[in-house]
């Protein structure tokens, strides 16, 4: 008897052949050696040094932020160590006119795009002046709702397209964010309109405590691009040169009118989810930690630059000292922000104060002027 032919298409085999195409792009291995000459973005010496400086600076900022948080001198903080290549090398491929729609861990990209450091500290402390964006700075404040920024990025990108700007909208989420409906709607809308958007998923392996394997049965997050009919790429998110190269290519495609790209960066967060009580030992082992520490973006980039004679301990110390000084100054500036009032909150609700708010505004103005 002939075997019954299934009416249902099982894509598993086809999928395997697609999944193989999402091979991880790597340029610089853990030893700091170029392993993919063709993909090497061939950055100038100055650019290489600048990118290294930013990564070192940001690692210091992360350490200082954690310690300030422990002293009660910062508020909400989501640690960034381990994600420097994913965050800063992708940002390094951008221009001022590009618009960033960040998740809450993406404070470093905002700072390097021009968000004043003291404002980032004010945001962390829960002061409204932190999020007051300077004119012409193309960023949104860090998004708290996972994935909401993805669909907004499709809108910013469509707006740029309509304005005929030579710019892109870039947005970041994590592996957990890739399970949200807004993730699909975002990549699908941008794909449908062929808008200049870059969607980055920093796959740092855990959504708070939930491991990546539980988010989806798809082998990679990058391959979710297939469903939206857009290109996707999986990249070593601990490799600054590879992250830079794929983001640069995605930007070029977008500017040429070829539409959006989905980039999955494989990375790791060394610290807890946030400083508000998350304990990573509940969901991962120190073995996993040390495995990822071997891949550290700063270590491999330092090795690479030292071999080229572009980096030294002295240079690194210079950056560290500068970072510490600037952080100190920014904290001081944040300290001098005026105390917040209910009046402040009521005043920023609407352009024109409506009747109900007006009445309350008068009450609080009187109360708070005492």
């Amino acid at each position, binding site marked *: 008897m002939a075997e019954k032919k299934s009416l249902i298409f099982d894509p598993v085999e086809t999928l395997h052949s697609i999944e193989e195409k999402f091979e991880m792009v790597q340029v610089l291995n853990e030893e700091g050696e170029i392993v993919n000459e063709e993909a090497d973005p061939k950055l100038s010496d100055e650019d290489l040094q600048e990118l290294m400086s930013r990564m070192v600076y940001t690692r210091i900022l992360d350490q200082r932020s954690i310690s300030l948080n422990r002293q009660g001198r910062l508020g909400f903080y989501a640690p960034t160590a381990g994600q420097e290549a994913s965050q800063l090398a992708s940002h390094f491929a951008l221009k001022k006119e590009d*618009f960033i*729609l960040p998740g809450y861990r993406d404070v470093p990209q905002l700072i390097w795009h021009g968000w004043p450091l003291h404002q980032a500290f004010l945001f962390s402390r829960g002061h*409204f*002046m*932190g*999020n*007051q*964006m300077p004119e012409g700075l193309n960023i*949104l*404040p860090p998004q708290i*709702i996972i994935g*909401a920024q*993805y*669909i*907004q*990025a*499709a*809108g*910013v*990108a*469509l*707006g*740029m397209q*309509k*304005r005929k700007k030579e710019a892109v*909208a870039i947005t970041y989420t994590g592996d957990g964010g890739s399970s949200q*409906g*807004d993730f699909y*709607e*975002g990549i*699908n*809308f941008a794909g*449908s309109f062929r808008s200049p958007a870059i969607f980055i998923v920093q796959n740092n392996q855990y959504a708070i405590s939930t491991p990546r394997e539980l988010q989806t049965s798809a082998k990679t997050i990058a391959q979710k691009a297939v469903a939206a009919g857009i290109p996707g790429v999986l990249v070593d998110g601990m490799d600054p040169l590879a992250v830079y190269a794929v983001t640069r290519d995605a930007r070029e495609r977008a500017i040429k009118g070829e539409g959006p790209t989905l980039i999955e960066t494989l990375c790791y967060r060394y610290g807890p989810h946030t400083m508000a009580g998350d304990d990573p030992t509940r969901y991962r082992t120190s073995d996993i930690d040390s495995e990822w520490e071997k891949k550290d973006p700063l270590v491999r980039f330092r090795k690479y630059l030292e071999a080229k004679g572009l980096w030294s301990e002295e240079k690194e110390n210079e950056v560290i000292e500068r970072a510490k000084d600037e952080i100190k100054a920014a904290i001081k500036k944040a300290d001098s922000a005026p105390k917040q009032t209910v009046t402040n*909150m009521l*005043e*920023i*609700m*609407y*352009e024109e104060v*409506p*009747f*109900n*708010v007006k009445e309350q505004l008068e009450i609080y103005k009187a109360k708070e002027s005492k």
Partner: protein
Amino acid sequence: MAQMTMIQAITDALRTELQNDENVLVFGEDVGNNGGVFRATEGLQKEFGEDRVFDTPLAESGIGGLAIGLALQGFRPVPEIQFFGFVYEVMDSINGQMARMRFRSGGSLNSPVTIRSPFGGGVHTPEMHADSLESLMTSQPGLKVVVPSTPYDAKGLLISSIRDNDPVVFLEHLKLYRSGRQEVPEESYTIPLGKADVKREGKDLTIVTYGAMVHESLKAAEELETEGYSVEVIDLRTIQPLDIETIIASVEKTGRAMVVQEAQKQGGIAAGVVAEIMDRAILSLEAPVLRVAAPDSIFPFSQAEQVWLPNSKDIVETAKKVLTF
């Protein structure tokens, strides 16, 4: 002046603003070539091109997020949510994002978006098409919520909504789309948001209402007139923020008030209006302020619609209680 239905007045308002401001964009599901499922955007894509009037993929959250992003590029988006029952899909984009944009950016950014959406019972729709969900929106600081009851008001209020620099939810009652015609000026005009309209003057009782219930209330007022009662009918037009001044002035004059809404009684607009009257005019009252509202079930299966929806009979009955207290 042209005689227009409410749907024609809405199309006319959209056309007016598409002409006046090149930043105005109209989009949503089936709003382009198809002209919208109720023809609210009829002919607009042809007139203004696909760049300004366009279809989107079918995803409400996507439509809301798209509007936020476009607004960040200086556009004035007017998205359509095909039926307001679908708003649950886009609650984060509207209540969680647009409503908070000005606030969370410390006043440095805004979301001048007007979300248009049909709602309301009485036309035998399937589930999730007719529900009165406006109080989900009015309880969200940062939004304005508008519900017109006539073609003239619809045009003027929609133009004001589009020009407003804060997000506005503009709710269009399905039953009113084609239920009557009215003279509507062809030129552009605005009706200020947050201003109620006295649709009928009276001395004995104030009925505060909005949307389709304006017409039921007017019908009830006429009937009560035959029995010698003079009833004032206030059409709120904007339900967030409320026009407290107009309500209180009327209650102080009549000394008796009631509030009529199509939505279920629980957590409704009427409750808020009653509380405002208590706060501000209790000494003017000759009787308790009563409410006419739908019962607290989910919006009914369509065959039960007529018995479930409040009507002029219910209003007359409650009005008499207030009048004779």
